[in-house]
């Protein structure tokens, strides 16, 4: 009996304590000038500093839920008309496109966004916009591969790299977006040919994350790896001595799509159709797109700034000098389901 | 029978059926305060069902039960057990393992204030010679002690009636007698109406003020133990109360004849069944001629099988010498003989 009462008492206390920290959120989430409710699929520690700065500058409090993109979309849909969500952020154009398809976004016309962000990184209707860029490119073994051997995506699928390519599974949205871009550029048939070539070239069944692909190149498992740019830059400048050593030998190449530049994905966001704090949400989105914020994110997370006028800070600057394909992000984002089907067909796990 | 007080619990024509069996078949019984009624019957005869019905753990299908001037059970109406003021002591005692002896006894006393409760508990513990075990846990007690705790617990609320299911069955030998004595004096001091269920006829007769015989859901006979034993209303009742020799007799002109002797018979001529208790037959120097077929040592007595005219009977021989097999004589005590017409 005693034990039970002790547990009950403890639970009560903990609940009280938890309510104590949370009560202020609960009281004023419904509406109120002073806050914005952010649903984000980006979860980087450095973003917190950004939120703090936004609150310090504007007095607007940020309430935060982090999650995987599609779970957040499902949650916002389930919350329905009473959803408190104001702004949804994701680190992949596909998720933003799916949120738009679900009717979750409202179009936003913002001078600041239009001025800061190139048109191809914004959804044409203004439903969502990117504010950071990440290139899906190639890390290669500099002792075995010449840079010109990886200067186009096509070459990765050529017999030159039979059994020499490391790449993540088709679970990776970044792979889906890359293939989506190829479909947009080449048409479905040629894109499928390419995917078939990649599968034939795989050094091993897809496993692990991008970082693991880069390390596999260093370990000699393969000669080239398809990866996002920031993983490499992070490894090259991180705390891990082993990772830094790897990047001495493994270099980064920016393959070109039809000679127009490397495939670029975005981190971005959109304001929700039923946002209770719409103005604050637009303000926060504009804040993310500001030059200062882009520099902060780039410095900490190693993504590329989206604005052509914003110079990437070190260590990103060393890799920022590349041509990005001018394709609209909305175009390849819409091709993700098609890309998944192709990957299923060609046996890209 | 002179009725001084209305019965504490009056069971009238109670019937209780389970699918396929009639557990209680219009049973009527009155329990009076200060008296101990024993309900005797073979296992499965419906004794326990009667207890559960009286305690309110089961409804009645017909008939009714009254107690303390209130209606307790009727078809479609059952006062729940906690509202009846009738105590029940289960065969397995059902002591609460998480409570000490004193806490078990105090369990039903939640309406008393603390000093009153404490006083009541120590009074009961003293009465049942448990005072020294007040703080013990049930599983550390002996069987007899557990028994007394269960009864003290049930008596704590001063119930109008207390029902006990086979209270002494788990005990053996000397312990049984000793526990029985302590329990009985405790029970009598409580002045509640007591109903004890048992399948042991000796125990029933030793303990009961009133005896009720039950078989196959029906009440066969009720009355004083002596009356029931000596004047069973039927063969079934007779057998319930102890061993009996059943012998076919012939009635002629008011006399019933059997190979072991004759008794007067108040019935027409013809065959009848003669029931002779073992203690109604005694080996003697003269009397009916029989043959001793077998002798078994039984401790305080010898169990002797006798035979006459192809009929066998059993008797209990007490005395210093061992009866020899072979021809012998016996006499029959007419008080221990009953005749039942065919």
């Amino acid at each position, binding site marked *: 009996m005693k034990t039970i009462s002790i547990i009950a008492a403890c639970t009560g206390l903990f609940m009280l304590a938890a309510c104590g920290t*949370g009560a202020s959120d609960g009281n004023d989430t419904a509406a109120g000038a002073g806050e914005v409710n952010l649903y984000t699929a980006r979860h980087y520690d450095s973003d917190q500093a950004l939120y703090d700065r936004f609150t310090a500058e504007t007095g607007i409090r940020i309430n935060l839920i982090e999650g*995987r993109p599609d779970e957040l979309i499902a949650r916002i849909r389930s919350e329905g008309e009473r959803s408190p969500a104001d702004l949804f952020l994701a680190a992949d154009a596909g998720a933003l496109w799916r949120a738009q398809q679900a009717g979750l976004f409202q179009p936003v016309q913002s001078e600041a966004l239009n001025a800061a962000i190139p048109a191809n990184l914004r959804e044409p209707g203004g439903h969502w916009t990117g504010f950071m860029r990440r290139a899906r490119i190639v890390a290669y073994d500099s002792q075995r591969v010449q840079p010109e051997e990886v200067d186009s995506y096509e070459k990765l699928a050529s017999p030159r790299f039979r059994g020499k390519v490391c790449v993540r599974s088709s679970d990776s949205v970044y792979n889906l977006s890359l293939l989506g871009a190829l479909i947009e550029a080449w048409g479905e048939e040629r894109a499928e040919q390419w995917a078939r070539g990649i599968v034939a070239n795989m050094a091993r069944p897809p496993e692990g994350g991008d970082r693991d692909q880069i390390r596999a190149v260093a370990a000699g498992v393969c000669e080239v790896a398809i990866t996002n740019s920031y993983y490499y830059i992070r490894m090259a400048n991180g705390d891990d001595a082993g990772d830094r050593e790897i990047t001495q030998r493994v270099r980064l190449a920016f393959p070109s799509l039809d000679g127009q530049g490397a495939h670029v994905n975005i981190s971005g966001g959109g304001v929700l159709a039923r946002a209770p704090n719409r103005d604050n949400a637009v303000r926060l989105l504009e804040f993310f797109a500001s030059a200062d914020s882009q520099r902060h994110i780039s410095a900490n997370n190693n993504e590329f700034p989206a604005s052509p006028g914003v110079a990437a800070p070190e260590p990103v600057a060393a890799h920022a000098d590349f041509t990005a394909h001018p394709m609209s992000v909305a175009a390849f984002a819409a091709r993700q389901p098609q890309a998944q089907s192709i990957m299923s067909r060609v046996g890209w796990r | 029978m002179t009725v001084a007080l209305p019965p504490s619990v009056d069971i009238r024509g109670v019937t209780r059926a389970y699918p396929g069996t009639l557990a209680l078949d219009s049973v009527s019984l009155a329990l009076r305060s200060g008296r101990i009624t024993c309900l005797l019957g073979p296992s499965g005869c419906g004794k326990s069902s009667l207890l559960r019905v009286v305690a309110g753990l089961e409804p009645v299908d017909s008939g009714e039960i009254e107690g303390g001037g209130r209606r307790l059970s009727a078809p479609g109406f059952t006062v729940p057990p906690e509202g009846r003021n009738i105590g029940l002591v289960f065969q397995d005692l059902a002591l609460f393992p998480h409570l000490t002896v004193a806490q078990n006894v105090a369990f039903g006393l939640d309406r008393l204030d603390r000093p009153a409760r404490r006083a009541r508990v120590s009074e009961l513990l003293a009465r049942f010679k448990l005072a020294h075990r007040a703080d013990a846990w049930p599983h550390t007690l002996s069987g007899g002690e557990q028994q007394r705790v269960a009864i003290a617990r049930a008596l704590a609320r001063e119930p109008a009636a207390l029902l006990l299911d086979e209270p002494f069955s788990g005990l053996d030998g000397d312990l049984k007698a000793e526990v029985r004595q302590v329990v009985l004096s405790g029970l009598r001091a409580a002045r509640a109406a007591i109903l004890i269920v048992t399948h042991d006829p000796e125990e029933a007769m030793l303990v009961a003020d009133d005896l009720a015989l039950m078989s196959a859901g029906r009440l066969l006979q009720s009355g004083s133990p002596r009356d029931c034993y000596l004047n069973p209303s039927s063969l079934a009742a007779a057998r319930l109360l102890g061993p009996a020799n059943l012998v076919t007799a012939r009635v002629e002109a008011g006399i019933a004849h059997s190979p072991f002797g004759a008794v007067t018979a108040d019935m027409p001529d013809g065959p009848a069944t003669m029931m002779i208790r073992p203690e109604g037959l005694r080996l003697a120097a003269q009397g009916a001629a029989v043959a001793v077929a077998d002798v078994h040592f039984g401790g305080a007595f010898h169990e002797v099988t006798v035979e006459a005219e192809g009929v066998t009977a059993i008797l209990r021989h007490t005395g210093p010498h061992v009866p020899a097999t072979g021809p012998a004589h016996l006499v029959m005590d007419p008080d221990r003989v009953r005749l039942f017409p065919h």
Partner: protein
Amino acid sequence: MVWAALSGETADIAARDIARYAATSAVLALLVGTITAILGSIAAWLVVMHRFPGRDLFAWALALPLAAPAFALAYAYGDLFDVAGDLRMWMRPALGFDLPFEMRTLSGAAFVLSCAFYPYVYLAMRAAFLNQSVTALEAARTLGCTQRRAFVRAAMPLARPALAAGVALAVMETLADYGAVQFLAVQTLTTGVVRAWSVYASTASAAQLALPLLGAAVLLMWIERAARRGRAYESAGSKWRPLPVTPLPAAKAALACLFCFSLLFFGLLLPCGWLLWSSLAVSPDWIRLADAAGHSVSLALAGAVVTVALATALALGAARLPLAARLVSLGYATPGAVMAIGLLAPAAIIWRMTPGASGFAVGIGLLVYAYAARLMAAALEPVDAGLSKVTVRMAWASRTLGRGPAATAWKVQLPVARGTLLTAGLVVFIDVLKELPATLILRPFNFDTLAVIASNYALDERLPQAGWPSLLIVFLALPAVVWLSRKIAMSRPGTA
């Protein structure tokens, strides 16, 4: 969910892929089931019936891996044995050979999940061996069986219900796993569910993929319940004597000791040690971690109390509603991703009804409800066992002593069963600490738990940072596991 599955519109997932996912799930479940059955049984038999150095320590320590979330083990092993990881990078030039296995494969995942889930079988088998009747063993010995033959021919068959129950738990956990399998790049049906749901945004095909998983869950629940029914007569024997404990000679004792140590080593020491080692390089945001730990512990406590309360109510009413009790147990075997999708439907109703949806109280309430739904089976079993210690007659006795049904439950049934209620609470507590999918999708604003933080870091491929929250979970769950494990040792009748 079923409704969603039947409502037309399906995503373009190749039938071949679905078959592959299903086969992978089946093989994984089979492997984990077999490995945990063997390891758990042998460990329990060694510890209960033999004497060797360290046996008293191993007896309770072998359950400790229960404190480590499967995803933490996956992080550790995936990282430690990565082809390009420090270990292998060093081995190849230094030792001149490479390890002949890969963690990010089906067999690697089976290894990791077996390490994480063997304690379920171990605990069930240890309880069964502790409670076995000596007479059956002695009869086997007098009929010419050696000690080992007696184990195979008498003890194992008698403990079969416990084995079935333990393996069913391990397999259910395997099917329900979310983080570990994903991290190890093994594509199970869960992968298919997530893919259908996210890329194709098709709830219908996600639900269709989830149906076989739910079917498997129903089957496993049924096995587990059938096994439990068998346990009733197993303890019918009333004579309890101390079990005959065989001292092992030196060589065999060393082997037994090594066997038990390797279980503990691979289940807890190695992965946690590696996580700790790689985490030392980064200094975590302690304030955020402490905050999340507070959230984790309060959620786990609230979840434990609510789940046990509901389980108790269910168990008390189970006689009247046997089907309900079985249905609510389904959540335990439901894969995390499926559960997360399924939970959104009832959550949507609540969200749409309450002003200030996703408010703090609503969020916490939903989470606790989700835990109860997910972990009911884990709580129901011990609660059931505990309440069955209260005989019907004890309850009747209380009624005739003037207490009504409610007072009887409160004063007699619950106190008598309090030990097992506590056990059930601890099981839920440990599981909630490790819980991921429901927490991820239902939690309120600004409310991270340790598991969520660990998962987020792992998604971002920052394993050293993921190590700290994972280790904190182990740290918080350990005392509960130790207590649970030691309690079983006292379960042999007559040793109280």
